[in-house]
């Protein structure tokens, strides 16, 4: 890899910082959540940076008010707090109000899935995809590396409406070294395959690629798709791609069977009368308090590479040759 992997938030915040000099309409609101790059925004644009304190409800309301006054707002907090602590504010003053009044608010949630590894279930986030995709008028963006996270900046500025960017808190390997993701398509085909296609989002893209590599060594060539725009992907293109497969595996770092990417794709293939069967990889069961590395935790809850490899192998073997 020629590009050094960086934290998603640092890259996105750097894009925002660089744009704020030119674009006087950008306002940055934090709920007492920082980063070294954020310090540059605080120092250089104090009149368009505000820290509301540990007050996510007010984070959303103040952001809505600023957006109604014409600002392009970036609101920033830890993922579970910026989505769930203030869900009704998001529903009423962003999703609902944007139906009537144009406004541009971009919620940046840091800490997708297990990325706050040792902080436990309050700071980990397994429900956000489900909750945020339930809201009309909302766009849910889930990048798998810092290149995609940074590339979303232009879309955030140019596309009106509320958006949720689900960022990983850890530095992840670069997936788009030479090939920039096609943001308008909403997904990217990393490799084509036979019969089985893995559709992953966020961190789980890296697991999907690992598993695909192991499967290739076993003689199974599977497709791998990065779904980074969960709400506005090109449905016709995705249908065309998926219709070539007999089995689809969804991979997400969120609860399984509770309305996340798995449910979205179930609905998608049912509505479009695709014949593929599905296997869903997601966090099994309820909240967990175990400690360990992210990889260890993933194996415990049914989303680690080893567990996924076994599940997908069994899934592949369940199809007639």
């Amino acid at each position, binding site marked *: 890899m020629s590009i050094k992997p960086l934290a998603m938030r640092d890259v996105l915040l750097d894009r925002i910082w660089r744009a704020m000099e030119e674009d006087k309409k950008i306002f940055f609101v934090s709920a007492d959540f920082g980063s070294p790059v954020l310090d540059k925004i605080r120092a250089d644009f104090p009149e368009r940076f505000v820290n509301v304190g540990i007050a996510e409800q007010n984070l959303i309301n103040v952001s*809505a008010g600023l957006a*109604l006054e014409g600002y392009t707002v970036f609101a920033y907090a830890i993922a579970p707090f910026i989505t769930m602590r203030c869900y009704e504010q998001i529903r009423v003053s962003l999703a609902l109000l944007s139906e009537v009044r144009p406004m541009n608010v971009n919620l940046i949630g840091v800490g997708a899935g297990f990325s706050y590894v040792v902080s436990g279930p309050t700071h980990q986030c397994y429900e956000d995809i489900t909750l945020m995709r339930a809201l009309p008028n909302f766009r849910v963006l889930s990048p798998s590396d810092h290149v995609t996270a940074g590339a979303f900046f232009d879309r955030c500025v140019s596309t009106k409406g509320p958006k949720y960017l689900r960022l990983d808190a850890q530095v992840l390997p670069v997936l788009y070294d030479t090939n920039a993701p096609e943001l308008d398509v909403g997904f990217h085909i990393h490799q084509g395959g036979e019969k089985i296609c893995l559709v992953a989002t966020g961190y789980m893209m890296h697991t999907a690629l690992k598993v695909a590599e192991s499967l290739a060594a076993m003689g199974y060539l599977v497709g791998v798709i990065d779904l980074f725009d969960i709400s506005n992907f090109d449905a016709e293109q995705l249908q065309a791609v998926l219709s070539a497969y007999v089995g689809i595996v969804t991979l997400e770092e969120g609860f399984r069977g509770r309305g996340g990417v798995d449910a979205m794709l179930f609905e998608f293939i049912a509505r479009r009368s695709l014949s593929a069967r599905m296997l869903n990889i997601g966090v099994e069961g309820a909240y967990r308090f175990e400690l360990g590395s992210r990889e260890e935790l993933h194996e415990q809850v049914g989303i680690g590479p080893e567990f996924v490899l076994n599940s997908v192998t069994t899934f592949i073997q369940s199809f007639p040759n």
Partner: protein
Amino acid sequence: MKVSTTDLRDKAHWVWRESLAIHRRAPETRIASSLSCIEIFVALYYGGVLRFDSVQPLAEHRDRCVISKGHGSICMYPILADLGYFSLDELQRVCKAGGFLGGIPDPVIPGYETVNGSLGHGLGVGTGMALGLKTKGSDRSVFVVCGDGELHEGANWEAIMFASQHKLDNLHLIVDDNRISMLGYTDDIVSHGSLSARLSAFGWDCLEVDGHEIEDVQAALLKMKAKKAGKPKALIARTLKGHGVPGLENAPLSHIMNPKPELIDSLLEQSL
């Protein structure tokens, strides 16, 4: 626009009658909480307090009026119609198919800035507007009208702390302090004690007024709007829920009570 006190009183009386008439036609509307804030809205809109544009309701040169106590603002329907935001005929179609004036006002109604009815949102959004106006160098003001029961919602207090921290002296909170929420007197539920004392302790400038003495309300609003001392401002308007309707006025369950059509008819006849 200079309006005489007599004219303001006449207008408030007309709004009171029209509000009752709307409720007579659409009993789904919340009438008691819409009768406590009539003088507040009449003073804001007719008393030379608010700058507004009924032809371009969202024009940049308007003062922003956020009506957070949504369902308790049915009295705004005749006011907005009278001022030309929409036709007076619409008042005949409240809560009816094809109309846009619902039981709880939505921002599809010209003159309504935000989503209301779900309580405790208006002040926070208004605070963001006030910060946005200051940042872009505008001299426009934000007025937020809420109920005292609504102040039980904690998000308000996040906004109250934020507004004083940022010295938002273009932000005005008007509390329709009728002291009754749905299930009874707020003092028996979760008492605010003295709201003025509480808000002052949070760094706000506070005024109190009899919310049914329209000239006092108007004077207080003009005074608070003129004052720019680096503090957000609140007007606590002491009011009566169900004002002017026997049996309804100040009844602990007035929020969910509907006066009988015959009573409304006789009140409208007597008050001509």
